């Protein structure tokens, strides 16, 4: 971005102050059918990717975990089982509609997980508090990714891990098929299942504008994490980055 007050909203360029509201509108619109659409779009693979993130997190009983942009709460639910009664999981999201879906679902399942509406760029937690911070399919919607990464690092204890699960750059030979799927099929599916083609058009565009594996790795290192490694999942459709605060 040449103008420091502007940022991406999908393929469009908007003022930074507008992005959060526009992203908010998208997620407000898709909140109720978010998981259904994820299942349809990824053929259920998003559940495997999320479980993999939990396996790789190294979280154990008694740990403190922060689920940033956790929305529908599926990761918080799984982490809550892993940390047990001696641990703590906190679910956060900037979007009230998404957070309400996750909060209600967790309460219905009897999971006592605090749900907080907050901005990932200004986390309301003390320094060195969590053993693990995770953001799954949320970072690309943040206006200042660098600030959000630095904040997530701040709240990590020494030895803690930051996990970023996000769409990434697909293996080059598969790019034409992936593009056709994202820009032709995805909005149609959005229209059919969520009655909202525009929001799913934004999802496809925001995925393309998100940094690739190596760029995100460097951003995490720049945010102050001492070591960062990543996994390509489904030929790079999704990447899981794991960074350590040493």
């Amino acid at each position, binding site marked *: 971005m040449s103008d420091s007050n502007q940022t991406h909203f999908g393929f469009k360029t908007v003022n930074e102050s507008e992005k959060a509201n526009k992203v908010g509108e998208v997620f407000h619109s898709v909140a109720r059918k978010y998981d259904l659409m994820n299942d349809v779009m990824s053929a259920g693979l998003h559940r495997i990717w999320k479980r*993999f993130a939990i*396996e790789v997190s*190294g979280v154990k009983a008694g740990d403190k975990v922060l689920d940033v942009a956790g929305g529908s709460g599926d990761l918080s639910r799984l982490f809550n089982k892993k940390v047990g009664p001696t641990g703590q999981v906190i679910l956060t999201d900037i979007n009230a509609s998404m957070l309400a879906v996750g909060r209600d679902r967790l309460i219905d399942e009897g999971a006592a997980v605090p749900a907080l509406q907050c901005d990932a760029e200004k986390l309301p937690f003390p320094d060195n508090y969590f053993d693990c911070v995770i953001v799954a399919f949320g970072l690309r919607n943040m206006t200042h990714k660098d600030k959000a990464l630095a904040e997530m690092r701040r709240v990590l204890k020494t030895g803690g891990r930051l996990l970023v699960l996000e769409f990434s750059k697909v293996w080059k030979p598969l790019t034409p098929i992936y593009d056709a799927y994202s820009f032709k099929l995805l909005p149609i599916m959005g229209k059919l299942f969520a009655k909202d083609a525009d929001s799913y058009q934004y999802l496809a565009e925001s995925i393309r504008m998100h940094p690739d594996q190596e760029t995100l790795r460097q951003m995490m290192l720049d945010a102050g994490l001492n070591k*960062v490694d*990543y996994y390509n999942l*489904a030929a790079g459709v999704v990447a*899981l980055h794991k960074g*350590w605060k040493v």
Partner: protein
Amino acid sequence: MFQPLLTRLLNHLVTQNQWARSHLLPFSGKTVSFYLPPAQASLTILEDGGLAVAGETSHADASIHLSASLVLRLLAKDSDAMSQVRIEGDTELAKTLAKVLQNIKWDYEEDLSKVLGDISANKASTFAKDTVKEAKQQVVNFAEMAAEYWQEENPLIAKKRHVEDFVQQVDVLRDDVERLEKRLAKIRVK
């Protein structure tokens, strides 16, 4: 695609073998690479003592180099084979992980019992164990029979005794040649 499944399997095995977790925990965050040409795989020890497939940019703290024949000997529990494995880097880490992987056991009866119930799982597991034992015995019998045929009836394989005799004769010949070379050298000096 296989990373999530393999990592899940590894962690499931570690959960079933809790002793392994305590061995691995002191090495959390470290990575070991296994080389079995042309294949290569790396495993990372997690912060909870579990195991995961290593990521794309992981740096190996130790590497274990194997050959196909060595793997077969390790699988056959040949006690001398372990001493021939080449280890580079953090040898303590590599030895611990190798020991864990060698001794970890899959309690498949426990897993089956969740699907089939205890009694059926026990019967299925006993049947599987008996089948594998019988198959192993049949393979050993066949191999012994084939070896005997190729040693006695249609000699293709040398007998151990003959190989040892041959090796001894080669040693004698080598010593004789060395002595002869020294004598020739002395004559040349004179």
